[in-house]
């Protein structure tokens, strides 16, 4: 009898443990929205979302510069990081011998483990230094003077590109390995070269998995805070939308929250939570796309 009672109690405890995740997600959603929504009602959705001035001391809370900054830096980071990550994945799955893979894979694991502040510190000196000498030197006549400090979208994008590499590499590897061996064997038997069967067969077959990898990389880049703060310059202004914008100091949504939460008054805090809501919505949209892709891949596999 005692054992049955114990069994029941254990089961209840385990269920509670499992349900903690659901409970946490709900709480996070509720609290971020509850704190951030009032400001949208007070100043109007469009004024907050598309207002291009962020000046909390005068109660002006336009987060458009941060939205543009975030999208710009994420786009450039993925433009660099995605091809590179996919390339490394192809190398590891198809080309490298086992000994080489065994040195590269731990290196990738380690890249994933390095704290973002360490990336930030590296970026603050090494990457920013190189970009500053470029923007003061050869580009000095073209760029406006406030674009020459090296603290820039490009610096942040380069650091982010490195930081999203492990995500993209690992998930692309899984996607490539999931392609049935027979495809490749059949293709090679028909006399195509190894490289031809990689890009005509393997890559298309692994497409949805690789897209998932890139989207998760986008999510990581969007959400990264500390490394970005340390190199992006944090100016809450819309960067130039041509190539010179690469050298513009900007501010991401994440940086906006982290920089100002410490000293914000009540209404200012709400505006920062509102920034969090926008970020949250971005992530939800991305996650839904991933879920859709995963589901489609599963259904595709069942056919």
């Amino acid at each position, binding site marked *: 009898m005692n*054992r049955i009672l*114990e*069994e029941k109690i254990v089961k209840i405890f*385990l269920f*509670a*443990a*499992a349900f*903690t*995740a*659901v409970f*946490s*997600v709900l709480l*996070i959603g509720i*609290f*971020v929205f*509850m*704190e951030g929504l009032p400001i949208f009602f007070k100043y109007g959705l469009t004024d907050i979302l598309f207002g291009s001035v962020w000046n909390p001391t005068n109660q002006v809370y336009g987060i458009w510069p941060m939205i543009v900054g975030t999208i710009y830096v994420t786009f450039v980071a993925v433009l660099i990081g995605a091809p*590179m990550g996919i*390339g*490394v994945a*192809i*190398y*590891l799955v198809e*080309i*490298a011998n086992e000994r*080489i893979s065994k*040195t*590269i894979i*731990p290196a990738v*694991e*380690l*890249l994933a*483990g*390095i*704290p*973002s*502040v*360490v*990336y*930030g*510190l590296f970026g*603050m000196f090494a990457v920013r230094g190189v970009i500053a000498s470029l923007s003061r030197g050869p580009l000095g006549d073209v760029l406006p003077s406030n674009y020459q400090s090296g603290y820039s979208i490009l610096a942040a994008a380069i650091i982010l590109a*490195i930081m999203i*590499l492990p995500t993209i590499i690992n998930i692309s590897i899984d996607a490539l390995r999931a392609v049935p061996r027979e495809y490749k064997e059949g293709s090679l038997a028909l006399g195509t*070269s*190894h*490289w031809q069967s990689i890009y005509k067969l393997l890559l298309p077959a692994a497409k949805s998995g690789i897209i998932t990898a890139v989207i*998760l990389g986008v*999510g990581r880049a969007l*959400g990264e*805070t*500390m490394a970005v703060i*340390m190199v992006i310059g944090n100016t809450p202004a819309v960067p130039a939308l041509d190539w010179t914008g690469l050298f513009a100091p900007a501010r991401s949504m994440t940086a906006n*929250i*982290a920089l100002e*939460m410490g000293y914000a008054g009540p209404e200012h805090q709400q505006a920062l939570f509102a920034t*969090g809501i926008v*970020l949250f919505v971005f*992530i939800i949209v*991305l996650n839904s796309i991933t879920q859709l892709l995963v589901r489609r891949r599963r259904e595709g596999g069942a056919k």
Partner: protein
Amino acid sequence: MSKVNRNQNIAFAFFSALGILTVCILLLIIAYIFVQGITKISFDFLFSNPRKMGAEGGIFPAIVGTIYLVLTTMIIAAPIGVGAAIYLNEYTSRGRITDMIRFATEALAGIPSIVFGLFGFAFFVILLKPITGGWSILSASLTGVTMVLPTIVRTAEEALKAVPDSLREGSLALGTTKWQTIKGLILPAAMPGIITGIILSIGRVIGETAAFLLTLGGSLLIPQSLFDGSRTLSLHLYMVAMETGAMDVAFGTASVLIILILLINFAASWFFRRLIKRFS
């Protein structure tokens, strides 16, 4: 055919270069930090108190803060995470509730850490201030628990799945209850995998900064209890680099962090290899 061969050679050379570049980037980052920071590390740097807002002196309070935070977070997160994995893997089959739990776990893994920070600030720091003491190790730990939960659940579930069913069936056939089987047999067998997940989570807590910036308070004093504010090594690095401007301390702290992460990665892969050895 020669054109095909040439294309292949060019493509393969390019991909090999990318692979080598990845390793080079890692080495460059580590070398860059170590060259400027490793000489800073000394007994005095590790075990004395900071002076002048961290611009001089040591990093001892940040080390104590990191240890406190890691321990508290893991003591709460490990039982919950492993419990969740046991429930998902041993007690239910696929259904609406497990789907919901899985979905929530995935969603937690995708939420940016600064959003965890916002939540922790609004919920633990402000609303539950009478219980948590406001900005404190406890508030930061509870925030940290929600962040590391997906990692622990996922790795523990994989470890449990790797335990062969024959073990479960054999034990149940001897008349033990389900929980006795799990406690006495399944959990010990899956332990290396579970520990791998916990070690990886410790790495996550050590490396996390954004969420703790909003929940831990950043005090430079040595914390006396869970209800005191504190700072971790990562937070200390950020604050001395961005606010105090003491770059030598920042690089020294970064070197300590890299050494910690190296140790954690070695430990995790050691346990992981033991798990694989056990079931092959």
